[in-house]
């Protein structure tokens, strides 16, 4: 027997009951995708970067974007943030089209989004504390509240001891985790990961994936996870996080009793989506490029 578990739905019911609001209205809100691409096209000079790309990221869902170098994966993330504008098509964040928004309005949209960069992109001149506190400091939040929030986030990424260090003193994996903590400040409902495990050793890469799983299953965060590493796909699409009675987080694999439905894969090739679906379907698809990508030969 197979039982389908969607952590998202569980959270909806709890939340609506706590607030005393109607489940229907919240479900309506949740029916609006966190991110939606509609026939997005982008080209630099004669080079096509994205060709009529359409996909949806539901609330609480992780969309893994696979593809080789130069396939347009990171461009998708830059488009969601409004750092570049598409030539055609529409991009919606929380149901709001971000095409045509000016810088000021984009800043408002960006506040809903956390971004984890490939190399962490920490500000070199600021300490770990100042990096993580950056968004709150800019918003003029009270110092005590900043301190509390930074400590909470560094605890989430298990880096409480590094609070006073400078980025130059951190290892590659620590930099990425600080980057994740910085992205999560302000509790964004959407988090974008741009190849966060590139160049990391396997255990550290797994730690980063576990953080993404924790966000998906325990924090109800919608995310796009750009990667070209199959290990990441394996972790994200087959493991889930649960909390035991003592409050400890455990990671378990889906199997006969449970199947994750909040993680899907899209695969890009030369700016086109050549696959969209679950990891099981990806492995079963009959396409030589995908086979080669998955198996390396």
């Amino acid at each position, binding site marked *: 027997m197979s039982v389908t578990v969607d952590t998202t739905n569980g959270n909806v019911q709890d939340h609506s009951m706590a607030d005393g609001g109607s489940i229907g209205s919240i479900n309506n809100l949740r029916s609006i995708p966190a991110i939606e691409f509609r026939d997005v096209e982008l080209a630099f000079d004669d080079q096509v970067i994205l060709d009529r790309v359409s996909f949806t990221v539901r609330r609480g869902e992780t969309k893994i974007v696979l593809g080789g170098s130069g396939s347009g994966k990171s461009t998708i993330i830059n488009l969601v943030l409004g*750092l570049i504008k598409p030539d055609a098509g529409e991009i919606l964040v929380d149901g709001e089209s971000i095409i045509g928004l000016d810088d000021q309005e984009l800043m408002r949209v960006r506040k809903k989004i956390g971004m984890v960069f490939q190399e962490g992109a920490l500000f070199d001149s600021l300490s770990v504390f100042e990096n993580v506190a950056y968004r709150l400091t*800019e918003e003029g939040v009270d110092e005590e509240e900043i301190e509390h929030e930074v400590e909470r986030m560094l605890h989430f990424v298990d880096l409480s001891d590094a609070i006073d260090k400078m980025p130059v003193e951190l290892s590659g994996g620590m930099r990425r985790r600080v980057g994740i903590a910085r992205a999560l400040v302000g509790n964004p409902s959407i988090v974008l990961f741009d190849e966060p495990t590139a160049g990391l050793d396997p255990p550290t890469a797994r730690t980063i994936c576990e953080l993404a799983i924790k966000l998906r299953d325990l924090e109800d965060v919608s995310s796009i996870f750009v990667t070209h590493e199959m290990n990441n796909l394996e972790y994200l699409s087959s493991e889930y996080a649960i909390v035991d009675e003592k409050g400890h987080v455990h990671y378990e694999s889906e199997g006969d009793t449970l199947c994750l439905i909040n993680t899907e894969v899209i695969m890009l090739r030369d700016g086109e989506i050549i696959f969209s679906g679950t990891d099981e379907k990806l492995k079963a698809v009959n396409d030589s490029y995908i086979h080669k990508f998955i198996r390396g030969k």
Partner: protein
Amino acid sequence: MNPISRFLIGLQEIGSLIGRMLRGLTKKPRYFGEIVAQMDSIGVGSLAIVILTGFFTGGVLILQAYPTLQYYGAQSNAGQGVATSLIRELGPVLTALMVAGRVGSAISAELGSMVVSQQIDAMRALGTSPVRKLVTPRVIALVVTLPLLTVAGDMFGLFGGGIVALQIYGLDSNVYISSVRAGVDYQDLLGGILKPMIFGLIIGLVACHRGLHTTGGTVGVGRSTTDAVVVASITVIIADFFLSKLLQGFFSSTMF
């Protein structure tokens, strides 16, 4: 892309940078702390090289000019010559060139490194405008501190000239000082303050523009830094000519 198109696009981008900077000035946050920090880094940090440049430029002016003036029996006008050259032209231009070399390169390299390491993207992703946070404080700091540095350079230039005149040529100090005072009028002082403000704007905008448009990794950072210094220096020298002409016309029409 041909050089003319590149030049026009560069001009358009700098125009847009000015526009965004001015729009940003009308809204919060304004980053006063950052402006003060930049003034310290740019102004106080550049003081030593500006003083040295001014001192030895003043000294060499007297060293070269005095024998000729003595030949015509006009050695009592030595101070006037140094004051006019320094305050009108050499002070503002040499200070601007020194600052373009030291500060322009540093700004371009810093912003360029931030671009290639995605720190600028991170800043935008975190809801901060890099123009407001990085460009505006640096440009304002340059516009404010460059005139002050120029005044310091001029003072030490006159001092250096005086030392050479007194120690090497035995000119009386009172003669030198009265000659300096006779050689300087309000037009010179005003021009000597206005020009560095424009030069500060040029250096700041060129350095920030080159830095923010860095492409091509660490090699690109080096290229942007070189471009920033070269373009800012040449633009300062060209602008000096047109500003001098403009100020000349303005002062003669208003009979200041």
